[in-house]
């Protein structure tokens, strides 16, 4: 796969979700992404139509790891195109099984990693960075912009890097992709990110709360800590934030009725 093909596949992979549907999820988007590659590999119209049919069925993968799956499909489709007619059926069946298994397994790791942990981790990092920058230099509103920019880059950069390089890696690894991915300790990475993100969020709470952690401010900081604990416990019981917000509104209303506000 040359660089031009990799770039074309990468740019088209952004549109994987553009025609997302409940029926086939990203299936049509995958066919759209692969179309130029398949056109090149199958000059015969009938074979091209068959190849497109193989890929516009059900497909769903996390955006960050979609590159690896696309790369593997490209490698296997290339082999199918070069195979003898009697070998094709078996190769096609193996490719479809691998595509299905790979997209499911990689997404099962990438969804909790990127959406479940990376996003909150980057947020905790961005909040701490913005807070520290604002303490060190008088940035004014620049601190918020810095935090927002940091958050965006910290998440998008590794995700895009993985998506772009995944295409080449997937293409090079082909059927050996499972063997090549085995050494990665995804769960360990998730655990470490969670732990450091949790520490950062506690640190951010301490930054915010430090000025109020004195006996003089106990009347304000005490209830705030109690609300924090109550919200955390409610989340442990899977109560949605919208419901907790509603609960806080009712609490405010009751306090107002009792003349405490």
């Amino acid at each position: 796969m040359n660089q031009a093909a990799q770039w074309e596949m990468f740019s088209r992979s952004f549109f994987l979700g553009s025609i997302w549907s409940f029926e086939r999820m990203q299936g049509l988007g995958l066919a759209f992404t692969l179309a130029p590659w398949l056109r090149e590999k199958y000059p015969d119209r009938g074979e091209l139509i068959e190849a497109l049919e193989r890929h516009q069925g059900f497909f769903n993968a996390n955006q960050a790891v979609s590159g690896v799956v696309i790369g593997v499909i490209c490698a296997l489709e290339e082999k199918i195109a070069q195979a003898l007619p009697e070998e094709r059926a078996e190769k096609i069946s193996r490719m479809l099984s691998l595509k299905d298994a790979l997209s499911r397994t990689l997404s099962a790791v990438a969804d909790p990693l990127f959406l479940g942990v990376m996003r909150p981790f980057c947020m905790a990092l961005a909040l701490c960075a913005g807070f520290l920058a604002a303490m060190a230099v008088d940035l004014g509103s620049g601190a918020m912009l810095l935090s927002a920019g940091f958050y965006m880059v910290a998440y998008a950069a590794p995700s895009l890097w993985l998506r772009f390089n995944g295409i080449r890696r997937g293409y090079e690894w082909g059927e050996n992709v499972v063997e090549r991915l085995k050494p990665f300790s995804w769960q360990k990475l998730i655990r470490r990110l969670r732990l450091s993100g949790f520490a950062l969020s506690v640190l951010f709470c301490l930054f915010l709360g430090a000025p109020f952690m004195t006996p003089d401010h106990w009347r304000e900081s005490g209830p705030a800590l109690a609300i924090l604990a109550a919200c955390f416990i409610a989340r442990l019981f899977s109560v949605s934030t919208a419901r907790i917000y509603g609960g806080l509104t009712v609490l405010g209303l009751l306090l107002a009725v009792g003349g405490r506000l």
Partner: protein
Amino acid sequence: MIELVLAAVVLSLLELDRRVVGIMISRPMVIGTVLGLAFGNIEVGAVIGVLIELMSFERVPLGADLASNDTIAAGSALLLALGPKTGAVPLSFALPLGIFAGWAFKRVEIRMGTARASYAREADRSLERGNEPSYDEYVRAGLTAQLIASAAFFSFIIFVARPFFSWGWHFTPHLIQKGLTFALATASILALATLMHALRPAKG
């Protein structure tokens, strides 16, 4: 009003990032900060953006399980709270209304996700006839529909919801106003608890 319409156009375009590009420019924290700066009220923009962003960590959208649209939530809250002082909705009211808007738009997205299956059937028919489906056209149509849906939703927020809730706020019982103000004051605590919960060290 012109600036609100322009903001709605920009927000509708940025909303596409959720579906296609995925480089975080549609995240509440980013649009909140940028729009707040553009309207000369970065504090309100940042509060809306950061709070909705943190609250969005409560759930990981997986496969067909769509989460509430937090870009629409933040965009709606921003369009309600920012802009000309006359007609603006107080932040304590705009934030819960924005969260509700994000949930309401999820219903629209569910319908659109079902309707987009027609492209797949059209592509199947093309293949049956021996023609290559016009994927580019499907992509264009899919994105245009998404753009129109979010632009229509934001227009509703500007021209119907904003004047209605701005007017309605004055008639809202004082106690409810106090309750909403208290909820806004404590929203940052809820948001931090959601962040800590999302990152809590898991068992095993």
